[in-house]
């Protein structure tokens, strides 16, 4: 019974495919891919709509106000109203803009975000395209984001757009390093770049209660935190929304966009956020595995989306509580703290592996991480008194 419920989507797809059972092989392949794509888009566009209203509700709750509550029950139809509003708005393209590139930028951005969603295992046997180099695919495709943001900034022919694009590329480049390097220990321990294998490797339980998720090892916990923060920066969310910076540069690379193109940027931002959180769940939080063995009867995809929602809640929570960081402080943290810590995670993971993956290795890798962390704190002199700020270029 439980396994039938677990595999309900897989069986559904097989049923749909059985209708064209006699067709040539390539037709079945195309139909299979199309079903995957439609399911993926339907699930994540719904999640996007839900997220946009829930985020505003949670923000409202944290700031002691109601949030949207006029459209439909509890304001749940707000995304529909927003969508109609965005569709009927005038689409303004600046006269001096590069029309083609201006149009292509949001399209490329959204396409990249959707592609990266494809490799994440959403449940048992539920990966839209299971390829061997899945993790590499994620980062290879994701790295085109920077180019798309740059296209948006450059094609708008506006100084705020250009500044926003420059900031976006600087921050994405700096944080892509820790983002990728913190994935390496997991790839190293599992010995595969395939997301399904990585989830499979976390499926066991110690003593039947503590799951063997990588987040419960010292290197995994450190890598997870670094990965999460870097992911936050990559998706341009609030504590790190320097490229948009409403109070400084209007809306950054999105300044000259209006109507549905503007909405597409937001769609891409949210899909990127889902993708990075989904990868974090896959790599460190055990993917679709249940936290305790007794709860394994609950379908796997429910566990995945529960973990995903928890991470997304943290995103909203951080947005409600933290002010925007300064550009130079952000860069300093990336290069002087995040990068060395990310490398330390690799070393700690290697020690954990060679000490037999048991209690012994656990303590040793904890020691290495704490040691490097304290050494970095002393070296970077975090308790330094702040010097008087010197303005070099704005006097």
């Amino acid at each position: 019974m439980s396994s039938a419920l677990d595999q309900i989507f897989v069986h559904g797809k097989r049923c749909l495919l059985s209708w064209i059972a006699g067709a040539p092989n390539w037709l079945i392949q195309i139909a299979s891919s199309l079903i995957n794509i439609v399911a993926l888009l339907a699930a994540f566009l719904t999640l996007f709509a839900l997220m946009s209203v829930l985020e505003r509700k949670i923000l409202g709750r944290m700031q002691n106000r109601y949030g949207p509550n006029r459209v439909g029950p509890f304001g749940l139809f707000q995304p529909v109203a927003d969508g109609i509003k965005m569709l009927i708005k005038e689409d303004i393209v600046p006269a001096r803009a590069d029309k083609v590139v201006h149009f292509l930028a949001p399209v490329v951005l959204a396409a990249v975000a959707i592609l990266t969603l494809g490799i994440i295992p959403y449940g048992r046997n539920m990966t839209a395209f299971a390829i061997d180099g899945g993790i590499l695919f994620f980062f290879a495709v994701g790295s085109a984001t920077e180019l798309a943001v740059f296209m948006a900034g450059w094609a708008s022919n506006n100084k705020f757009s250009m500044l926003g694009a420059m900031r976006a590329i600087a921050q994405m480049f700096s944080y892509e390093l820790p983002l990728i390097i913190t994935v390496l220990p997991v790839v190293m321990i599992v010995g595969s770049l395939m997301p399904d294998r990585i989830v499979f490797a976390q499926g066991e339980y110690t003593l039947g209660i503590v799951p063997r998720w990588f987040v419960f090892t010292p290197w995994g916990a450190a890598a997870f935190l670094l990965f999460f923060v870097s992911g936050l920066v990559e998706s341009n969310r609030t504590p790190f929304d320097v490229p948009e910076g409403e109070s400084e540069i209007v809306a950054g690379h999105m300044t000259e966009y209006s109507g549905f193109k503007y909405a597409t940027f937001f769609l891409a931002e949210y899909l990127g956020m889902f993708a990075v959180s989904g990868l974090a769940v896959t790599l460190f939080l055990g993917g679709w595995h249940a936290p305790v063995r007794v709860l394994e009867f609950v379908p796997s995809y429910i566990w995945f989306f529960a973990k995903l929602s928890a991470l997304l809640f943290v995103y909203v929570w951080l947005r409600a509580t933290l002010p925007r960081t300064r550009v130079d402080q952000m860069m300093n943290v990336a290069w002087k703290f995040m990068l060395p810590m990310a490398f330390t995670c690799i070393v700690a993971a290697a020690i954990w592996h060679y000490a037999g993956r048991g209690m012994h290795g656990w303590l040793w890798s904890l020691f290495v991480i704490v040691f490097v962390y304290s050494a970095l704190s002393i070296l970077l002199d975090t308790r330094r008194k702040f010097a008087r700020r010197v303005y070099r270029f704005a006097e």
Partner: protein
Amino acid sequence: MNGTAFIVISVFTLAGALAAATLPNLMHAAFCLVLALLGLASFFFLLGAEFVGLALIFIYIGAVAVLIVFTILLTRRDSKEHYGFNWSGVFIALAVFAGLTCAVLKTHSISILPPHIRALTVKQIGQALMIGYVWPLQCVGLLLTAALIGALVLVMEEKR
């Protein structure tokens, strides 16, 4: 099936490369170069070399293309002046073409390759890099470190 895909990708790649070489607007040329690189990566996918194709996208589109675009932006304005026909470019192109043709003609026919190439695992790549090609890897690492330190020295604030 594969033959058609090969022709489609070739046309796509060549069109991208040609546009990159001829477009007057440098930024457009850079974006077309990205298309050409995407076509090159598709060739690797067609040959079943997934890892190389993804690495190509990752490095060339994710890093090198952004670097090119940035350099264009930081170094020159969009000048409308027309540069004369560049004969040295023709010579270099012909020399490269001749060299590549020689190499292609000397290679044995592709049909002797086994039809199914086993997918590379991370373990094999790691072993190749750490055992067979450890010296080239270390040399490249040293070179990149030197470049990184050089870049740091260039932008370091002078102490007062």
